Structure formats: C-alpha cells, structure tokens
C-alpha cells in the first residue's frame, strides 16, 4: 500500500464541514427571529479558510495523481452541485433573503467544493503504479 506521508486533508475537510453544519444549525435554530450573522459569518470564514489550506497542502504533495483526482472530483462536484442547488432552491422558496441567504449560499458553495475535493483526494491518494481504472 502507498504509505507516503500526506497532509491531513480528510481531517481538515471534516472540520470544515462541521463548521458549516454548526453555522447552518445556528441560523435555522433561530427562525423566524432576527439572527445576528456574526457567529455564522465567522464559522463560514473559518470553514472557507480550511478549504483554502487544504487546497494549498494538496497542491504541494509531490507526485500526486492529479489525473485521477480530477477524474473523480469533477463528476463528484457535478453531483454535489445538483444537491446544493436543490437545497438552495428550498431556501429561496421559503423567502430566505438578505445576509442570511448570502451566508447560506456561500456555506453551500464551500460544501459543494470541499466534498468533491475530499472524494478526489481519497481516491487519488491510493493511486500508484498498480494500474489505471479500466472503465
């Protein structure tokens, strides 16, 4: 098995997703009252920062199988964009507007990028010289 040292992409991604989920619960738990957006924005910013850190760490991995990564991540991203679109549509139907909508949209965007990145990483980390995907 490929035992080369790799950055903690999975751990950082799970932390990032956790922050998004906490922000979402914080916003939805206060409806229909006016919610101070500060905590949700801070959680979103921390989550987005973790996404950026993950991308940087991943880009520095020597001999990483980027072909395999993008092969998986692009289809995964398509699937999660559809899911994100359905969730966002539900919020729009419920007349969520203003700052709350912006925070929720950006949170869903981080989710729709970080999950495919994680899926692509999990597949590509095990790529080696044992062969390409047959079909």
């Amino acid at each position: 098995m490929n035992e080369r040292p790799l950055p903690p992409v999975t751990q950082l991604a799970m932390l990032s997703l956790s922050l998004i989920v906490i922000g979402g619960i914080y916003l939805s738990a206060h409806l229909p009252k006016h919610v101070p957006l500060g905590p949700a924005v801070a959680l979103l910013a921390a989550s987005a920062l973790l996404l950026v850190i993950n991308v940087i760490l991943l880009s520095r991995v020597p001999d990483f199988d980027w072909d395999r990564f993008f092969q998986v991540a692009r289809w995964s991203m398509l699937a999660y964009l559809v899911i994100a679109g359905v969730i966002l549509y539900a919020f729009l139907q419920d007349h969520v507007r203003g700052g709350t909508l912006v925070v929720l949209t950006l949170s869903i965007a981080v989710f729709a990028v970080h999950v495919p990145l994680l899926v692509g990483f999990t597949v590509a980390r095990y790529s080696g010289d044992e062969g390409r995907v047959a079909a």
Partner: protein
Amino acid sequence: MTDIAIPAARPDTKHETEAPPGAIEIPDFQIVPRRGLVLVAIVLVALIVAIAVNKLWPLTFFHVAFGAAWTIIDLFLGLVLGPIMGKMSVPARIEFTTRLMPKMLLIMPVVVTATLAAGWQLGVHEGTVLTSYPQHAWVVASFIVVGVMSVLALGLLEPANIAVLVELKKPRPNPQVIEQLMKRFIYCAGILGIMQVATLVIMTKLASS
C-alpha cells in the same frame, strides 16, 4: 473481469475455484450505474415540484418515505449487513461490494437530499422549525443529529465508498487498500446506524406531541 491477488483467501467459494490460484475474479461493474441516473433525475425533479407546489401531502410523502428509507438502510447496513460483511471471506465480500456499493452511490445522496429538503419545507409549512413551536428543542436536536450524520457520511463514508469501487476497477487492485477502505465504510455505517436510533427517538417524540 479483473483479478486481484489475495494471499489468504478461504477455499470455500465458487469464485476461487474458478480463478487461478492466489487470484480472485472481480465481476465487471459500473462505478455509477448509468441506468440508475434516470431514476435519480425523476426523483429529484419530483422533489423540486413538491417543494414548488408546497402542499402538505407531497412534502409529507417525500419526508416520511425517504426518511424511513434513510433510517432503515442505515440501521440495516450498520447493524446487520456491516457485521456480516466483516465476517465474509474476501472473495465473497468483493462480489457483494461490487453489487451493493454502486447502488448505494446513487441511492444514499438522493434519499438524504429528498428527506432533508422536503423535511425543511414541511417544517416551514407546518411551522415546526420556528422558535414558537412548543417542541422546538427537539427539532434543533434533530438538526444536530442530522448534522453529525452528514459530516460522517460526506467526510468518511461516501469517499470510502467511491475509493473502494475505483480501486476494484483497476487491473490490479490492492487488497490492503480495499481492506482499509471497507473497514472505514463498515465502522462508519455502524455509527450512522446507531445515530439513526436517535433520529427515531426524536421523530416519534415530535409526531406524538
């Protein structure tokens, strides 16, 4: 078909008798079953229509039917099938994996999306997501349980599911990689199964109040 070298395979399976010594046949399979994508599209379109019309019955149908499917699949996979898979011989587990996992890859995201999107819309429709709802604390508890399950499913289970299928598609899959990913998948499914018990407690409490 693809062959995989497994040094310690048990000699009691049909596949091993057909394969050369030390190798196990891997059935041909599609990582994403393309015919299933049509069903996925139909369900998602129907879900969007249900949200758009915003009527009680379609929203209840989507939330209850898909929520029940999510709970039952997680409970059954985590607490019944998972332990069984862990005790299967490697060839049997590989054959089972190639038949089960591609379907799970389509079923679970759709089931989860339909449950959550319809559930949210139903909560808005009925006012159960509002702070004025008497059982609001239970609703927030359900958000937390679903949030934890989502992070586990998206961060660990789904990537392991896809990675194991991609590994099995290689001309020479690495048994150690498959073993490691399957272990992650089975443990994660077990935790999700246990968490679904919490979902059942919360949902039955809300339905009976």
